[in-house]
């Protein structure tokens, strides 16, 4: 009860006074600044990939610095002010034990620091509302931050108890905390001799695990030891008033002993370390896409995993192939130890641990590093009479230019190869040959009527075409596409709300039409199988300098720009990011930017299929990993190849939120206003209100 009464007094002294809110405004301003800049850095330079590594880890390391700068301001007055006022004499002559006085002050300061940390959760909740991420690692990091705040508080109280000057208390606390932080900066300097144990005392290393979403008992023990050390030393200082004669020497010996004990506790923590990884595992279930491929299997398939005994990676590999065996009775799995059965490895041509071979009859495909998509692709590929043949059609006239153009699409080609397709580059000016699917990369340069005619004839024979139509593509090609019901327009679409924050001004996030708000202008024929290409892509597709595609009467719109978008003919100004809406010439969106068309060709052949997208950049290596770009392309090729039932079931390559994050310009403005504006301002207003109230009470 006495601690409760004292705690109430301490809490009132902290929360009822302006200091906490002034410090809070400073704290939240810095934390908000880091939140915003780390977020912008993450989406612009980190491409929004892997939110934990590229955003949260940075943010939490920055928050630690903010905490280091603010906690000394919270603890400085704890004992120093009491000494200055003389109220220590009151406390020490009341029926209180020193431990009770310390406990109340420690709890109050720890609660104040935790309250500040709690406010920093608000921007993270906002972020979660924009794109949900798994909360586990964030919770681990906050546990680490609270533990660290508690050890900061313990050290702050110790130094506050040594002086009656608040400034001295704050500065010395800051100094000690910085020292504990920088101990690990120059690790090589302390490699040998007695200095080698110094980095182990560093807070830097002990917080890193928490920031990564991993809770380790040795780190918890470390922070608990710091708190114990600070508290014990502080009690010694408070008890010094009753020292008789010189007890300095025994105290120093005692504190030294305590340090040694803490060292042992730390070593003990290292020895018996338990690890709790709160980072989410990727879902270990097969995607509906893979399951459909397994359902369609019409012959037995053998999957062989080549492992090495006691290799930690074995579990992952055998788990992966095991899930295929569980899902289909036609799949038989064998695990082969390469070292015990080298002949078998040679027979399959395997020279790496962890390799997987998928075999059907005498046809087989081998992967050094297999994943679910590769194995599913191999099963689909081996089930076909022959692999799907995809031709990439570059648009430049000379061979060197074509090669350069092709290099920009290496990631796309790699993805197709992973699926088991055969990918080939078409020579400049040539037709699609015997390819099942042709992908036109840009369509700039000359398209003589003869080449157009060759493609028309190929389509009539059952060919399937994907056109990535860049602005400025050949007029002959555009005219032919228009006749076929997908007319590429000469303008560029600008969508200020949906552009990538910090990215180029002509970037734009396009969604399937049903998802664009207030979208009634782009009707689509119901029941069209092509709708499945984009309907599941809720993250949208990131395009760059896209052109509108005017759909024909029976064409299906796959992607459209947002309702705030508009089209301009001034491509130069658009690209320089200085275009503004001109009511006399520019048109208001939304505009279709990807369109699918299907038409009968007669003579018993299946219908001809074609997809036209108003942009080629989105399929290049630099863009392929953004949002749902890759899935949109693979779905398009799947629909064109006639795998209609697989298209809608494709497993997502990347987990939204965790592995892929997109920040639009509008969202960035909101983040800035909330984190750097609203929260610090609210804290400052509370401080102001308290100052005014105090003035009025006088």
């Amino acid at each position, binding site marked *: 009860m006495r601690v409760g009464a004292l705690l109430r007094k301490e809490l*009132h002294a902290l929360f009822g006074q302006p200091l906490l809110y002034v410090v809070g405004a400073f704290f939240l301003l810095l934390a908000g600044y880091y939140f915003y800049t780390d977020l912008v850095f993450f989406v612009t330079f980190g491409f929004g990939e892997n939110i934990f590594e590229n955003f949260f880890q940075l943010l939490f390391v920055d928050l630690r610095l903010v905490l280091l700068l603010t906690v000394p301001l919270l603890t400085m007055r704890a004992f120093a002010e009491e000494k200055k006022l003389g109220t220590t004499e009151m406390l020490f002559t*009341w029926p209180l034990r020193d431990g009770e006085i310390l406990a109340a002050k420690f709890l109050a300061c720890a609660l104040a620091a935790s309250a500040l940390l709690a406010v920093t959760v608000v921007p993270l909740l906002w972020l979660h509302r924009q794109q949900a991420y798994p909360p586990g690692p964030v919770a681990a990091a906050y546990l680490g931050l609270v533990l660290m705040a508690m050890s900061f508080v313990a050290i702050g109280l110790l130094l506050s108890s040594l002086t009656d000057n608040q400034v001295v208390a704050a500065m010395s606390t800051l100094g000690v905390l910085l020292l504990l932080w920088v101990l690990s900066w120059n690790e090589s300097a302390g490699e040998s001799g007695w200095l080698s144990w110094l980095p182990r005392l560093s807070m830097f290393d002990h917080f890193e695990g928490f920031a990564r979403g991993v809770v380790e008992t040795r780190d918890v023990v470390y922070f608990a030891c710091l708190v114990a050390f600070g508290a014990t030393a502080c009690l010694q200082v408070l008890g010094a008033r009753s020292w008789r004669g010189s007890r300095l020497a025994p105290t120093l010996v005692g504190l030294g002993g305590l340090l040694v004990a803490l060292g042992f506790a730390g070593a003990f923590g290292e020895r018996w370390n338990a690890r709790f990884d709160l980072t989410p595992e990727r879902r270990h279930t097969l995607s509906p896409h893979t399951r459909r491929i397994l359902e369609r299997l019409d012959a037995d398939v053998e999957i062989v995993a080549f492992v090495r005994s006691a290799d930690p990676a074995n579990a992952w590999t055998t788990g992966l192939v095991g899930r295929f065996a569980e899902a289909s009775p036609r799949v038989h799995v064998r695990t082969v130890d390469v070292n015990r059965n080298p002949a078998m490895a040679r027979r399959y041509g395997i020279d790496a641990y962890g390799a997987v071979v998928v075999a059907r009859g005498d046809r087989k495909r081998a992967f050094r590093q297999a994943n679910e998509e590769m194995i599913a692709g191999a099963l689909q590929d081996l089930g076909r009479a022959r692999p799907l043949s995809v031709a990439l059609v570059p648009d430049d006239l000379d061979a060197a230019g074509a090669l350069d153009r092709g290099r920009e699409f290496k990631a796309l080609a790699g993805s197709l190869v992973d699926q088991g397709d055969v990918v080939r580059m078409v020579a400049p000016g040539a037709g699609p040959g015997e390819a099942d699917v042709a992908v036109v990369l840009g369509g700039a340069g000359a398209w003589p009527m003869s080449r157009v005619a060759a493609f028309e004839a190929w389509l009539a024979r059952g060919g399937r075409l994907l056109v990535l139509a860049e602005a400025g593509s050949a007029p002959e090609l555009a005219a032919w596409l228009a006749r076929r019901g997908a007319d590429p327009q000469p303008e560029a679409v600008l969508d200020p709300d949906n552009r990538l924050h910090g990215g180029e001004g002509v970037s734009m996030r396009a969604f399937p039409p049903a998802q664009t708000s207030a979208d009634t202008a782009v009707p689509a024929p119901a029941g069209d199988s092509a709708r499945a290409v984009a309907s599941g892509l809720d993250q949208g597709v990131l395009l760059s300098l896209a052109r509108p595609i005017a759909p024909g009467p029976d064409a299906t719109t796959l992607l459209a720009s947002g309702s705030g978008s508009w089209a301009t003919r001034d491509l130069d100004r658009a690209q320089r990011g200085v275009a503004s809406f001109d009511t006399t010439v520019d048109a208001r969106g939304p505009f279709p930017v990807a369109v699918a068309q299907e038409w009968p060709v007669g003579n018993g052949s299946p219908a001809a299929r074609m997809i036209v997208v108003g942009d080629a950049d989105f399929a290049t290596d630099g863009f392929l990993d953004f949002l749902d770009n890759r899935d949109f392309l693979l779905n398009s090729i799947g629909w064109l190849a006639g795998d209609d039932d697989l298209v809608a079931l494709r497993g997502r390559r990347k987990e939204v939120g965790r592995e892929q994050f997109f920040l639009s310009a509008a969202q960035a403005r909101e983040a800035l206003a909330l984190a750097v504006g609203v929260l610090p301002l609210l804290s400052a207003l509370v401080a102001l209100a308290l100052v005014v109230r105090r003035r009025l*009470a006088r």
Partner: protein
Amino acid sequence: MIEVHEISKSFGPTRALDAVSFTVAEGEVVGLLGPNGSGKTTLLRILTGFFPPDAGQATVAGVRLADDPFEVRRRVGYLPERNPLWPEMSVARFLSLAARIRIPDRSTHAERIAAVTRECGLEDVAGRAIGNLSKGYRQRVGIAQAMIGRPHVLVLDEPTAGLDPAQVLELRHLVAGLGGRTTVVLSSHILADVASVCDRVLILQSGKLVLAERVDALRREVVRSGELVLRTRGAAGALGTLLAGLSDLRVRGIESDGRGGLLARLVQVEPEAAAELALEESAAEIARRCVAGGWPVLEVGPRRRTLEDVFVELLGGER
């Protein structure tokens, strides 16, 4: 109630208390006198359990300090010399805190807070922040917190320092009212405070207890000087002739009284044990002589010293 035996305390080379011993009976009000630096505050801090003595023992309210300083603190109410208080706290909140810490029985808190608020006259300022109160009110708040737990012993270090005369009177009244029920030890520079409320004084000098005396005994010291004064009007030479004829008195000096008259000071030739009685006899004789000689008698009688004179004399100092 308080037994102090051979207590000593040093701060570095300075010996603040040197083998001090005394006892205080239950219900007694004791004043601790002494010049600055004489060890008063150190002694009071030891009695309140703030720090232990280097040597010696003390028992306060039945508990040996060395055994259980915590229990001593529960039984002693203390107003420190600087009366340190948390300026941002309201009076009510502060008394509530003091009650929660000093009184284990929660059910009596409200009643005790109301009681000390009334006794110390704090009703009008209960809601105000302590930092905004006058010095007098702050002193009352300090005394209220010391009294709130109905302590066996109340220790007040310089309770009247900085108060105006009316407040001093109020405080004396308050402390005098406690006598008999609560044992009180108060330190002061002001002899009048001690004389008006204390039963006994302890005088400390340079860490040593130089006198422990009842106040009424001290009052007797006031006239124990063997000196007599006469104030009259006339010529100084003639007065000297008039007084020279006294057998048991000797003229020490005749001077102007500052108001156009004369002031003659006489001392006994042989100081006696019953000095006061003898002096009064001599005064009557002088009066008769003056009246016979036609001298107007403005004042005649034994010279009374102030308590301060006694105090300084006892300490061997000079005014």
